[in-house]
C-alpha cells in the first residue's frame, strides 16, 4: 500500500525552478532513492516532504493524510524520522542521552519539570542503540565518536519516534567507503524488517544501486526517469545526463576507436 504520496510539487526561488511538477509514491518497507546532478532539486524536493520548505503548489500525503507545509516538528509527530546531510546531534549529551532525548520528545514529556531525565526511557534507548550496533558505547559523549558512528546514532534518534517513513538526506556523505556500505545495509535491514519506508538522496551510486528498490532521477527540477535500478541504469536519457553530452560523444568515439 502507498505510504507516501507526493503529487505535483512545484517550487520556485525567484526565477529558478527548483521543482517542477514532481510526483512519486513510496510504499511501506520500500527504499526510494532520489538522484540527480548538483542543483537538480533533490534537496528541495526532500525538504518539501520533511516540512523544512513549503511547496508553491502540490500536495504531500502521508498515509492518506495531507501534511503539506506542516513544520518539521509536526511532520515528526505524524511518523516521519529524519537524518541530515551533516549529522545533527546533541553534542553536550552522551550517546544514550541523545536517544533518550528523542524518546522524551516522542512521548511528549519535554515539559516535565519534575522527573529525572537521565533515568527516563533508558531501556528503550539502549534497545534502539542495540539495533544500530552502538549499545556498548552508550555512555560516551557523542562528540568523541567517529563520524560513521555518529550517523548510526542519528539513525537510532530518528527511529526513536517509531517512524513510518525515514527521510535520509545523503546518508553516507563524508563517510569512508566501508562505513557507507555497512550503514546502508543496516538501514535496508531495519526498513525491510519493520516495514518502514525510506526516502533518500545520494551521490554515491554504489549505495543507490545496491540498496534502492526504485530510483527517481531529477534534472533541473523535473523527474526524467523513474523505475527499478536496472531500468534506470539502462535509460539512455539518464546516461546522457550523467555522462553529459560531450562525455557521451567521447564515449562513442572511444568505442568506435576500440572496435576499429
Amino acid at each position: 500500500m502507498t505510504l507516501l504520496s507526493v503529487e505535483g510539487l512545484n517550487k520556485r526561488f525567484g526565477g529558478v525552478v527548483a521543482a517542477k511538477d514532481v510526483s512519486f509514491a513510496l510504499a511501506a518497507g520500500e527504499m526510494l532513492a532520489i538522484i540527480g546532478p548538483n542543483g537538480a532539486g533533490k534537496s528541495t524536493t526532500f525538504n518539501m516532504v520533511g516540512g523544512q520548505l513549503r511547496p508553491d503548489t502540490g500536495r504531500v500525503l502521508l498515509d492518506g493524510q495531507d501534511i503539506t507545509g506542516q513544520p518539521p516538528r509536526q511532520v515528526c509527530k505524524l511518523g516521519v524520522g529524519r537524518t541530515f546531510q551533516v549529522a545533527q546531534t546533541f553534542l553536550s549529551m552522551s550517546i544514550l542521552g541523545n536517544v533518550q532525548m528523542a524518546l522524551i520528545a516522542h512521548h511528549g514529556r519535554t515539559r516535565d519539570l519534575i522527573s529525572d531525565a537521565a533515568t527516563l526511557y533508558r531501556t528503550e534507548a539502549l534497545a534502539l542503540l542495540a539495533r544500530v550496533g552502538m549499545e556498548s558505547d552508550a555512555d560516551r559523549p557523542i562528540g568523541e565518536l567517529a563520524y560513521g558512528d555518529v550517523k548510526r546514532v542519528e539513525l537510532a534518534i530518528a527511529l526513536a519516534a517509531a517512524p513510518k517513513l525515514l527521510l535520509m538526506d545523503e546518508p553516507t556523505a563524508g563517510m569512508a567507503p566501508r562505513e557507507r556500505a555497512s550503514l546502508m545495509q543496516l538501514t535496508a535491514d531495519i526498513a525491510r524488517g519493520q516495514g518502514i519506508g525510506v526516502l533518500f538522496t545520494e551521490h554515491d551510486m554504489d549505495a543507490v544501486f545496491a540498496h534502492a528498490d526504485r530510483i527517481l532521477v531529477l534534472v533541473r527540477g523535473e523527474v526524467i526517469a523513474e523505475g527499478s535500478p536496472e531500468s534506470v541504469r539502462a535509460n539512455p536519457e539518464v546516461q546522457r545526463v550523467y555522462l553529459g553530452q560531450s562525455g557521451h560523444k567521447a564515449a562513442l568515439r572511444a568505442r568506435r576507436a576500440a572496435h576499429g
Partner: protein
Amino acid sequence: MDLGFLLVQSLSGLASASSLFVIASGLTLVFGVTRIVNFAHGSFYMLGAYVAVTVVPWLLDFDRSPLLFFCGVLISAAVVGLLGVLMEILLLRRLYKVPELFQLLATFGVVLMVQDAVLWLWGPVEIPGPRAPGLRHGVEILGQRFPAYELFLICVGPAVLGLLWLLMHKTRFGILIRAATRDREMVGALGVNQALLFTGTLFLGAFLAGLGGALQIPRVSASSQMDLSIITEAFVVTVIGGMGSVPGAFLAAVLIGQLNSFGVLIFPKITLVLVFLLMAVVLVVKPWGLLGRPEPAAGRAALPEGVLAMPRFGVWEKAIAAVAVLATLAVPVFGDAYTVKVVTEVLIFALAAFSLNLLVGHGGIVSFGHAAYFGLGAYAAGLLVTKGGLPMEPALIAAPIAGAAFAALFGFFIVRLSGIYLAMLTLAFAQIAYAVCFQWVEVTGGDNGVVGVWPSPWARSREVFHYLVAICCILGIIGLRRVAYAPFGATLRAARDSEQRADAIGVDVRRHRWLAFTLAGGAAGLAGGLYAFSKGSIDPTLLSIPMSIDFLAMILLGGMQTVMGAVAGAAAFHTIKDFFMPLTDHWRFFLGASIIALVLIFPRGLSGAYGALRRRA
C-alpha cells in the same frame, strides 16, 4: 501647530539623527568586520567629547577661527581612533574566537574602566565646550529661529555617508571591509592581512565615534554618563538598520531622529519607550534589521558554550552543599548585623543568577536584560506595599507573578530571534522597563524611587527576615536545579545544541524557550521582591544595564558551564564587591579589569577550578 514649528521640529530631529548616524556607522562597520558588538563604542564617543573640550579651547586660544575649531574636532577624533587601535591590539585580538557573550562582557569591562579613567582624568564635574566660531548665530526659518550649528550638523551625516561610500567602493581597504562583512573566512582564505584589516577597521570605527562625540561639544557638556546613554541608542540604530549595514544605519538614524522629535510632542512621558518599541517591531517583522543580512550559519558543529555535563552530587558536593546551607542558617546566631545583611543579599542574588543561568547556560539564550525581571518584581512588591497599602505577604506573591508576566510578554518576541540580535532585544526590553520606571515619576518616583518598603511586623527583625529569604531562595534554587535535571532542562540543552535536530524529533523550540524565559523571569521577580524588602526601597538602578551585567558577571565568575556555578559566583561576587567598594573610589575600574581577566584567563570560573581540583584528587 503651524508649518514653521513642524519644520523646525523635523530639522532638529535630523540634526540628532545625523550625529547618531556618525556614531552608529562606526559601530556597524566594526561589527561587520570583526563580528564583535563593541559596548566600548559609547566610551569612544565620550572620550571624543572629553578630548575635544580639552583640545579645542586650547587651539581657539591661538585664533578664534572656524578652521582651528574643526582641526581640533578632527584631532580629537584621530586621538580616539588611536585608542581604538590600542583596544584592538590589546584586547579584541584575543576575543575574535570566543563566544559572543564573552565578547560583550569583555567590551563592557572596557566601558567600566573608561568611566573611572575619565572621572580620574577630568573629574566628576561636567565640562561645557566652546561654541563653534562662525556658527554661533541662529537662522530664521518660517518665522522660527534655528541654530546654525544644528544646520551644519544636518549636513555632516550625509557627508560622512558619502565619504564612507567612496571609501568602501573606491579604495582597497574599503573593498576589503565590504568583503569581510560578507564572508570573513573567505577573506582570510584569500590571504588578506587580517590583523591589519581589523586594526584599520577599529581605527575607523573609533574615529567615527570620537568624531560624533567631538561634534557634540557646542551642544552638550562632556559628562561621564554620555557613554551608556549613547551606546543603547547606537545599538538600536545599528540593529534596526541591520548590523553591518552603513546605509541601514543612516535610514534607522533618520527614523529614530524623527520619532524622537515628534514623539516628544505626542507622548512626552514615554519617548524612550517609543524608540525601543520601534526596534522590537522591526526585529519581529525583519529579524535582521531593515537592510541587514542573515548571519551566515556556522559550517561545523561546535560544542556550545554553557552547561555541558550534568553530574550528580558526590559525597564531597553533598557535604559542601550541607555546610553552605547550615552556615547560611547559622549566620543570624553567630554573625553580626552586617554579616547577616550581606548573606541575605547573597542568597537573593544567588537565586537571580541561578535563574539567569537556566537561560544562558542551559538554553543558550544570552539575556542581557535579566535585571528587568528582577527589578519589575521589586517594583511590583514595593508599589503594592507603599501605594497599594497591602502587607508584605501578598506583595511577595505578586513579585514572581510580575516577573513571569513581563518575561512572558517580552520573551514572546525575544525567542523569535537568535544570537546577537536576541541579546540586543533582551537589552532593549530591559531598557524599556528601565525607561518606564525612570520617566513615570507619579507612580514610580522616577530617579529617586520609592522608600518605605518594609516587611510585615513579624518579619521586621533582620534575623527573621533573613530566614524568610533563606527559605524562599534555597527552595527556589533547589526547584530550579530540579528543572535543569528534568526533561524540560534536557530539552533546553538539546535545542541549544542543535535547533534543527530538536525540531526534527518533534520539539517546539520557540515554545520551550519561551516557557524557560517565563520561569526564569518569575524566579528573578521573586528575588527582586525579596530585595526590595531587604533594602526598604526601590529605584531604577534595580533594572539598569549595570545590574544585568552584575548577574552575568556572577554566572561567569561561578562558571556558567556548571549547574551550581551561579550560586558560588553570586556569593563570591557580592562579597568581594561589598568588601572592596567602600575601600576604593575606583571600584568600577577594578570590576571592569576583573571581568576582562575572567573572560581571557579564567573563562571556566570558580567551578572550573573546582572541577580541575577534583579530577586531580
